């Protein structure tokens, strides 16, 4: 009769010795990391559930709050800026237009902001438990995606109630645009979360950079206004139109802003989006490789 100890020994005898800190080649390390992260996907879910649950714990309305804030924002844009300030004279269906941009920007903004802080915020775990540390920025992106999902419900309601419904020919831009923002947001979250461990200034820099990014995207003004101002500097307009978030916002506006179907938009939008998606995937890969290099000393730097 075999004892549990003998069983264990017999099982271990079949296992090879494995390196606890394997030498990480540029390509080979990436594959192994990916497998490890995929294995811990449940953990990513637990972590972002933890964020969401703890955020609304003890509040009477709970998750309803994540609906109230975007609704109020939408009303402010509709009434104050659209009607009182008169922005809707230049941009038809102003509230819907702004809300599309805000929703998508929110996804990017939250991914990058929370992602950057995520590793430092979980220092206690990183110093005590061995796990693929990419789970923390990924969980931040996950919780940003959750909020995005909630806001999309409001957005769709607004599109049908305040706007003129969706534009069926542009619907393909929706998944493409969201994917571009997700890929770039994740890449930046992973890269910046690692840099932030070594230089805490990063998270403040990110705040400033995101503010610039917000105004550098066609969220509260239109492409037409940009193109008219930059008519003598075509290459500046070209740079402006190469920003992945900007392109993604254009994409979503094509699909959901039926009041602006006739408004101008950069040429070859689909091709541009596909290009920034491809570049984004490369950036994501590089960000992970940098992260992997930097994460080796996380436990002592935190």
């Amino acid at each position, binding site marked *: 009769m075999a004892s549990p100890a003998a069983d264990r020994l017999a099982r271990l005898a079949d296992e090879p*010795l494995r390196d*606890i800190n394997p030498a990480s080649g540029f390509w080979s390390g990436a594959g192994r990391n990916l497998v490890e992260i995929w294995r*811990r996907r449940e953990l990513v879910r637990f972590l972002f559930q*933890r964020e969401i649950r703890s955020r609304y714990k003890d509040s009477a309305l709970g998750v309803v709050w994540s609906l109230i804030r975007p609704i109020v924002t939408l009303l402010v844009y509709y009434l104050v800026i659209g009607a009182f300030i008169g922005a809707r004279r230049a941009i038809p269906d102003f509230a819907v237009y702004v809300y599309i941009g805000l929703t998508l920007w929110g996804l990017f903004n939250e991914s990058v902001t929370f992602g950057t802080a995520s590793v430092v915020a979980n220092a*206690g775990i990183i110093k005590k*438990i*061995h796990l693929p540390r990419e789970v923390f920025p990924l969980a931040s992106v996950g919780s940003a995606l959750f909020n995005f999902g909630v806001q999309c419900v409001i957005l769709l309601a607004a599109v049908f109630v305040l706007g003129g419904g969706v534009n069926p020919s542009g619907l393909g831009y929706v998944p493409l645009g969201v994917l571009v923002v997700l890929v770039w947001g994740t890449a930046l979250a992973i890269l910046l979360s690692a840099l932030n461990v070594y230089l805490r200034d990063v998270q403040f820099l990110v705040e400033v950079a995101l503010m610039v990014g917000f105004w550098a995207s066609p969220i509260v003004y239109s492409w037409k206004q940009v193109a008219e101002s930059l008519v003598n500097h075509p290459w500046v307009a070209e740079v402006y139109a190469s920003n992945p978030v900007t392109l993604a916002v254009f994409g979503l506006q094509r699909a959901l802003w039926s009041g602006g179907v006739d408004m101008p938009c950069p040429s070859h939008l689909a091709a541009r989006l596909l290009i920034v998606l491809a570049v984004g995937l490369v950036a994501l890969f590089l960000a992970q490789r940098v992260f992997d290099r930097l994460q080796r000393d996380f436990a002592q730097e935190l």
Partner: protein
Amino acid sequence: MALTAVVAQNLVKSFTIRKQKSLKENIVNARRGRAFAERFRALDDISFQITAGESVGLVGPNGSGKSTLLKIVGGILAPNQGRVQVRGRLAALLELGAGFHPDLSGRDNIYLNASLLGLSRAETERYFADIVDFSGIPDFIDTQVKFYSSGMYVRLAFAVAVHVDPDILLVDEVLAVGDEPFQAKCMDKIRQFKQEGRTIVFVSHSTAQVTAVCDRAIVLEHGRIVEDDTPLIALGRLRQAYQGQIEATRQADAGSGDGRATIASVRLSSPGSYDYAGFDVVGRPGLTLEARCEIDFDQPVPGWSADLSIETTLGDPRLLTDSRDCLKMDLPAAAGRQGLVWRLPDLRLGEGDYVVNLAVRDQAGVRLDVRSRAAMFAIRRADLSRGPVYSEATLELVAPQPAPPAPATASQAGAADGSSPAAEPEERAGGRP
């Protein structure tokens, strides 16, 4: 067949000692850069192998690199050089409840913590009842963890940790928390792990825990392995290392006090004891200890007193006596040197290593001079009993007592099957003839 579970080869780990520097200093020194960074070698060429199923204690003074080594084996820190290989699933218990979220309930935290430690959701669900049962707090499982007492917190965390089912378990002093029953429970669990053939690497300052659990102990000092042997031998080596530090403390202590009186010398002796490296006296239980001490007085101190205490090398007090309250003596006040001899006859301490502390006080009880760990002695060959005090225990086999009369037999039967209510009045009746 010796199957290795952990192989560490030539591990080197150094840290940069950072001093809080201003941005200006950083910029000014940027060019000279690395020359300014001080390096500190926490681990210096460490190699060892651990056989599957073995339990190994990692011991050493504070700062010797034990925790760093454990973190490297656990994959939390990366070494500068060298490699670690392991066989099987590894779990590191470096801190109980790492990753617990105070706002989540015990239930949610079990899932989260188990997931952090590498259990899948399905596995956690399977063990969930066990975990709650082991934690001993089923009534609070849906309460937010922030309302837990620290004891409940640790219990829940340990309950999760022991269900991770590792082949190799790294434990870093986490068992130093919690009350005694809980610690006993932890030690039982570790022993059970051992029986199940798991490999255990155990960092502890408690020599008792290491001897109780480990087959082998590795002593680290300044990042090097200085001993790797059975716990008894290795811990002996560690004691010698501590001896050096104690000497330093003695030197430092020699000058303390306000200068009115100084303990000039302390000599410990015992008639018939034999000498042994590192100890002033080595004897058997029941020995007579004599401590001769000389005190220099700068000026007469009226109403002064002296006290002597004995404690184990780990600091557990065993005995205290003093000239005023215990011995009711008035010591004469005079300037110059005075001599005292303490006699402690028939000292029935159990086997172990002890230190003697001496102090001189003035009338108000203010310490004039202290000599902590002024002398060391050891009790050996306490064969007849174990524990803090010794007794020359004896045991003899005797003829059983003649059978008691009939009513008493009935009462004995009653006592034997517990507190059967029917037996009780009968016993009382039998007890009152």
